[in-house]
């Protein structure tokens, strides 16, 4: 891993070793906010920020951190960046900050960040670690954005808060409009959507392995 190229890092984080579909890391804190697209976006950006900068910090300090207190240092670095995110969100988007509730703080225990710090940042150059942090964050975010897009669309009939399903239903002659799948907004919807996503992603990578020429 020590001699990774930037391009490999990007490919790895976005698809081949995607934190959500392959490593199944860090779904704890953010699955809960995927019922509304905008909240997920804000959460994903916050997480990307924290991952990128804590990777950078840990990578800069990688030679001076004693092995024994490594975990503690990493946790404190992550927690400090999460405090920054929390304060910024409270100041600029108070409504969303309230809706996210405790889940912003739970970025600290998101295993993706810790996992990247352990596996990558503590043994790589700062610039590469920073890139890896951003890419892991993005790889994580786009999966959740896909999930939240469908959950919001089916659950509320909206995209980014705009009603789209109702007019669509009216235009094809269904007068009741869109009947909301309240199931999608609740917890089971999140579990099923993520399972579906993993299923599809795994099927695609499996066909690639069995037919490498195509």
């Amino acid at each position, binding site marked *: 891993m020590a001699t990774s190229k930037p391009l490999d890092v990007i490919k790895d984080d976005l698809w081949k070793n995607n934190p959500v579909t392959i490593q199944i890391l860090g779904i704890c804190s953010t699955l809960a906010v995927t019922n509304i697209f905008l909240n997920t976006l804000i959460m994903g950006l916050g997480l990307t920020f924290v991952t990128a900068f804590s990777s950078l910090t840990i990578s800069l300090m990688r030679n001076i951190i004693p092995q024994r207190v490594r975990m503690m240092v990493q946790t404190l670095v992550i927690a400090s960046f999460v405090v920054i995110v929390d304060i910024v969100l409270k100041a600029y988007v108070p409504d969303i900050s309230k809706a996210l509730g405790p889940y912003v703080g739970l970025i600290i225990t998101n295993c993706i960040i810790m996992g990247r710090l352990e596996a990558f940042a503590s043994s790589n150059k700062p610039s590469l670690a920073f890139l890896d942090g951003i890419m892991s964050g993005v790889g994580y975010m786009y999966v959740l954005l896909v999930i939240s897009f469908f959950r919001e669309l089916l659950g509320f009939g909206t995209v980014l808060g705009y009603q789209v399903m109702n007019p669509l239903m009216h235009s094809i002659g269904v007068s009741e409009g869109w009947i909301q799948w309240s199931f999608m907004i609740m*917890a089971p919807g999140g579990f099923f959507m993520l399972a579906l996503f993993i299923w599809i992603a795994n099927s695609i990578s499996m066909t690639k392995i069995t037919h490498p020429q195509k």
Partner: protein
Amino acid sequence: MEGLSPWVIFFASIFTGNILLVYFLGMCSFLSVSKQVKTSLGLGLAVVFVLTITSALNYIVYYYILEPLNIEYLRYIAFIIVIASVVQLLEMIIERISETLYINLGIFLPLITVNCAILGVSLFMVIRKYTFIQSVLFGAGSGIGWMLAILAMAGIRARLNEQKIPPALRGPGIALIISGIMAMAFIGFSGIVQIQ
């Protein structure tokens, strides 16, 4: 939250507001450890134990140290330090007291520091403005709820090994679908009592 009986919160946090199936907290270890009933039980007990203690300690830290000093925004750092130290301390104590307990419970303790359920319960406690007794019972109830979920999951997964599952869905995929079905079952409880 003054008026709510602590026991209502206790039972509500086990069933209607299950920390795992409703709030998605503690998913990582839930998915990775739930392969065997025995290990799930060990981890579950450790979570109950740590959750009860840390929710009490974090209550004291928040209301008697952070709030008087007006540094509530540092709660994430304070909470995580409390949790990490409690886990470390427990590990040492258990190691001294009993070897069998250490083998059964101690090896799971380091895993717990990064279990989001622990930090999540402390954060919920602050947001919902629980009193001390309510917080402790909320912590214990959430821990028991988590243990219940992981035990049920491990029991189901033990049976799954012999079933025909689409290859792409094996492992985490099917585990998530089962959690989804379990979450649906737990929604059935939600008419009984609501805690927000």
